[in-house]
Every structure is written in structure tokens, then in C-alpha cells.
């Protein structure tokens, strides 16, 4: 009888994580990614990692931490861990107003300037690109703005993320109807190819984007990023504590051309933590330029 079985239900479905295990695990995550996890999120972490323990036939989080640090598969396990603790959900043409600022104001300005300088090269860094919607959206916008003249340009959209799983999906470039919910029909028609398993991004957009596994908090990693005209990093630094945020902002400063623009998520601000950038209010959103 259901009445009976409801009485027996239990919420505890994972082993218990001791406070020391929690501290060790979060210190490890913080060291490697810059993501800070407060102690009040302990049960959430227990729940998110509980399945992983089961799959690995481990009976405690202490064993899991050992596995993360010393197993021959520690690299791939760390990547799995990242997937579980970070949020990776975007859609095409999300943040429409901010993209409008990019399309109507920033992009035309840079194009004009580079044309004048006789240097038709454009480099954009999409930091924290998740499953690829953002860099592909930027690629589509470049096609829309430059039209056929795009062939005269050397364009590179450098798209990076710490999660290899999302990068696999990003490189595949196949999306379902839901991802395309905010995309206008004529854009879908022009830039996507309908396949039985979904909509595939058109090769003319795909070839603009270069996906790389990279940790934006680590200067050793970001060294590899080309000097960029524009950096997009939206809804990523929100997960970092102030010190790591500062580090990331420094990395962006190093990688942005002097006349370049930085785009952050709407409720993200760096004003309190760093004076390297100053904000500029444009109709539709805020962009940051070097101070």
C-alpha cells in the first residue's frame, strides 16, 4: 500500500559527507577552478556527487577525494566533477538586448576602425562558451553584419570552457528545438541544417569558431588565447570569489586589445573588485573598456 511505503521513504540517498571531507573537496575545487562553494551547500554537493560515488563503487567521499587526487583517471574524473558543479545552460540569441549592443554598436565601430587601419582581422573570445550557443550566435551575427564581405576578413572566435563534455557537444554543433526557441525563423533557415537528430549549425559559421578546453582563472592557460578585440564572459565569474574574479579580470585585461570591449552578464559587475576596466552604458546594456 502506498500509504505504508510513503512512511518508509527516506531522503538520505547518498553516504554522509563529513565536514572535513567537504573542506578538503572544496579546497581542491577552489584551487583548480576558482569556484568557491560555501558550507551551506554541503547537502547539495552530497546529492550531486552521490551518483558518481555509486558509479565508481566508492563508499565514502574520502575515497572519492583520493580517487580525484591520485587515480590514473584523475584528469577525466576532475572534468566530470566540473560538469556536476557548474551550470551549463544557454540558448541561441539569449540576452537579446546585449547582443543588440554588440551587433548594432560595438561591432560596426570596430569593423570601421579596422578597415581604416587596413587590418581586416577580428578576434573574439567567448570565455565560458558552454555548449556553443554563444560563439555560434556571435558567428551568425558576424555573417549578418558583414554579409558577403565576410570573405575579406580573417575572423576567429576563440571559444573556451572548463568542461570537456560541453565542448564535445559544442563541436558537434547539433541543437534541438528548445535551444533554438529564441532564434528567429529566418536565422534558423539561413544558418542551420535540419537533420533527423536536430538542427546542425552551418559549416560557414562553424568554421569561424575554434573550441578549446581552458581554465580562465589560470594565466598559464589564458596565455594561449589570441589578443582579442572583444571578450564575452557572461554568467561565469558570478561563481568565483573576489580574489579569483580579480585574477580572471587581470587575464582578460592582458588578452584584450587596448581599444577592445569586454561583455559581462547583466548582474555581474567588476567595479568593486577591479579598477582595470571602466563601464560604458550603451542603449541596451553595459560594456567594459580598459581604464
Amino acid at each position, binding site marked *: 500500500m*502506498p500509504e505504508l*511505503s*510513503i*512512511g518508509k*521513504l*527516506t*531522503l*538520505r*540517498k547518498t553516504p*554522509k559527507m563529513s565536514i572535513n571531507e567537504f573542506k578538503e573537496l572544496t579546497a581542491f575545487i577552489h584551487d583548480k577552478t576558482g569556484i568557491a562553494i560555501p558550507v*551551506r*551547500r554541503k*547537502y*547539495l554537493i*552530497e*546529492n*550531486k556527487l552521490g551518483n558518481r560515488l555509486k558509479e565508481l563503487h566508492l563508499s565514502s567521499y574520502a575515497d572519492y577525494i583520493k580517487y580525484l587526487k591520485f587515480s590514473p583517471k584523475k584528469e577525466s574524473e576532475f572534468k566530470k566533477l566540473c560538469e556536476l558543479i557548474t*551550470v551549463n*545552460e544557454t*540558448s541561441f540569441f*539569449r*540576452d*537579446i*538586448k*546585449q547582443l543588440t549592443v554588440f551587433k548594432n554598436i560595438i561591432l560596426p565601430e570596430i569593423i570601421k576602425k579596422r578597415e581604416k587601419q587596413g587590418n581586416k582581422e577580428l578576434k573574439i573570445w567567448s570565455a565560458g562558451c558552454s555548449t556553443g550557443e554563444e560563439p555560434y550566435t556571435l558567428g551568425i551575427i558576424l555573417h549578418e553584419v558583414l554579409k558577403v564581405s565576410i570573405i575579406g576578413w580573417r575572423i576567429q572566435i576563440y571559444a573556451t570552457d572548463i568542461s570537456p563534455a560541453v565542448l564535445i557537444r559544442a563541436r558537434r554543433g547539433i541543437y*534541438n*528545438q*528548445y*535551444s533554438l*526557441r*529564441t532564434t528567429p525563423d529566418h536565422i534558423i533557415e539561413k544558418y542551420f541544417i*535540419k*537533420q*533527423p*537528430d*536536430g*538542427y546542425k549549425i552551418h559549416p560557414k559559421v562553424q568554421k569561424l569558431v575554434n573550441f578549446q578546453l581552458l581554465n580562465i582563472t589560470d594565466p598559464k592557460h589564458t596565455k594561449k588565447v589570441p589578443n582579442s578585440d572583444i571578450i564575452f564572459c557572461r*554568467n561565469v565569474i*558570478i561563481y568565483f570569489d573576489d580574489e579569483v574574479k580579480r585574477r580572471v579580470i587581470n587575464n582578460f585585461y592582458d588578452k584584450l586589445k587596448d581599444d577592445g570591449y569586454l561583455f559581462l*552578464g*547583466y*548582474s*555581474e*559587475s567588476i*567595479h*568593486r573588485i577591479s579598477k582595470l576596466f571602466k*563601464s560604458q552604458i550603451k542603449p*541596451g*546594456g*553595459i560594456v567594459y573598456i580598459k581604464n
Partner: protein
Amino acid sequence: MKKMCSEYIIPGMMLAKDVTGLDGSVLLEKGKVLDDKDIKLLIDAGIDYVYVTIKEKEEEERFLLNIAEDYVSKFFMYVNPDSKFVSELFKIVVELVFDGLKKGLELPCEDILRAKHVERMKDLFFKDMGGPEDIVKHELSLASFPDVYFRLKKLLDSGSASAKDIAEVVSSDVALATKLLKLVNSPLFALAKKVTSIEQAVALVGEEELTEVALGLSAIRYFKDIPSELMDMKTFWKHSLSCGIFSKIIASYVKDVNEETMFTAGLLHDVGKLILFKNMPYSTVETLIFARENMVPMVEAEEIVLGFTHTDLSNLIMESWEFPDEIRDIVTHHHSPRGANFKKGAIILQVADNLANAIEVSRGGKYVVPGMNDEDFDELNLPINALRPIVEKHNQLLDTILATIL
């Protein structure tokens, strides 16, 4: 036949309709009994939902209970699974969802719960550009609080208001008087006889008590004109009233707390959210999305996204409106009762807020249960098995009273 999100399907269910891909080709045929592989295929192919049937009645119950348990567990990911309060709450909600499923309740799919497709927008204020003080200052410059409120407040403060005085002030505001009468005549107040005048109501409920409830009701009106395309105001007030009702019922079990004070505190416990929403609508939306994506309670999302919480705003705005100290203190600490002067009241409100959030899960709510400490709960001396009857009583009252006060 039941419509079901792909991710909630349990192996053994049978397809009631063909499942087709984007190009119209048949992916899985009607009559197929689904196994793990099929379910994975559905999810990978981006099929949001399918129609399934279950053959045996007994089997169906088992399936539905499984689904209810899995579904409700998602909303309890943030809280201590070993807490007795949380465990009891969990069971109550599983049962509600289970009953709902039997009656055809459709559970929102994962991508809706986690707000995966909501467009983000820009805001007037940006983080770090204004703290709670600036927001409240801005708010106060916008609109003034209802006049009847201040007249009532003055009466309350004088300490010598008669039933006639109170009735006179309340009756000057016909809409308020009508609502107040309907409310006190509702089963929530369980008065011995039907009252037909405010004066009678004061006599039965008490001067201070009735005035406090009137203060709460007149405060609601202040927020009437908030545009609702971004935040569903009905849902907001339903949650608020739910907390008010729970608070009042729980208070009836607990010594040394006033039921009407608790009702008003419950009714207004999240006013900070309204102030936030009025002044920073898009940041509020961003916070809501953050909470859903990361499965954390709203207060924590606010802390991260905004750097302050709705309780900071409630405190400041209630101070400016000269709300009774007790109500302000309880409201300010409903997520952190240990810092409250009126600790029992704050704990009652925290319990009420948890109950309200948990019940909402069975009604399509999208936010996780915030949880609380068992040690705090124990201070109420409320037996854990009292929660079930409290929930039942609340569920009988909520919808009718909502119609009364809005």
C-alpha cells in the same frame, strides 16, 4: 494515458502514442514497453514529453509513487536529509504529488524547472551600483503608503484605542473594511458567531490583534500596481497568504505568541522581494533564474547575485513605514531566526515558509525547499506529527481566503 516528461519516465512504462523525430520519422512505436535505452534515446533526441500508459492498476500506483518520490527529491537537494523536520516535510509532499498524479497532475519538465530557456534582460540598477539603502530610498520617493495605515498605526501606538475608534478608521476605507470582515468570518479565525460590523470584530478578535491584521491588509494594497509580466503577482500573494495561514495555525500550538501578529508577519514576510522587484525587475528575474539553475533557495541566490537579500529590504522598508517592532523583527529574521529578538515568532515563520514552499512543489512550484535547523524547530515544542494536520487545515483554507483578500 498520461503525458510525461521524458526524464521522468520509468522503465516498464508503455508508449500510448508513436514518438516522432523532428523530421516526422517514427522514432519509437506505440505499444513499446520502454527500457533504459529507449529513455536515453528520447532524452538525447530532445523529445520533451511522450504519452505513456500503465497496464495494471497496482503497477500504476507503484510507478506514480516512484515518480513522485524522484520528482520531490529534486526540491530537497539543498536541505539536510537527516533532519526530522525535513524528512516529515518530504513525506507530506511526496504524498501530495502522488495524489495529484493519480488525478492527472502534469509535472513541469526539467528544462522548465531549471529555467533553461529564459531570456535575460538588462536592468536599471547594476550590482554594486546600489545597496539596499539606495533601493529603499528610491522606493520611498516613488509612492506613499496608504493613509488609513498611518491612522491605524497611530491608534495602535496610543494604546487606548476603543473598538469604536478602530471601527471608525477602518470603516472609512470601504474596501479594507469589507476584506477584513470576510477574513475574520473565514474558518481561519473560527469565531463563535458571524460578525457583521468592524466593532463586533474588534470585540471578538481584540483591539491590537485586529488592528495588526488591518495594517497587513492595507499594506498589500500598496503593491497592487506592480506590472505582472515578469513576476506572477498572484503566485507571490498566494505564497504570502500561505505563510500567513501556516504561521497563524502553528502559533495556535505554541505558547506565548500571538496568532494575529503571526498572521500579519506571514502575510508580509517577503515584502522585501516586492521592493526589489519594483526597483530592479530584471535583476530579480536573474536571481530567480540563478536559484532555479543551481537548485539553491532564493535567499542564497540573492546573496550571490545581488550581494544582499530581500530580508535586508524588508527590514529597512518596514522601519520607514514604522511597522510594529515585533512584526518587523520576525519578518527580518525569517531566514535566520537565531538573530531575532522575537525568536519564537521568527522560527514559526521559518517553519511556515518551509511548509509553504514544500506545498508549492505539489502545485507546480519551481523553487527548492530552503530548509531549517532541527534545533530551532524543537524550540517550538511542536510535535513532528502535528505537521500533517497543519498542512491539511491550511490546504482547506488557502483558496477561499485568497479570493477574500485579493
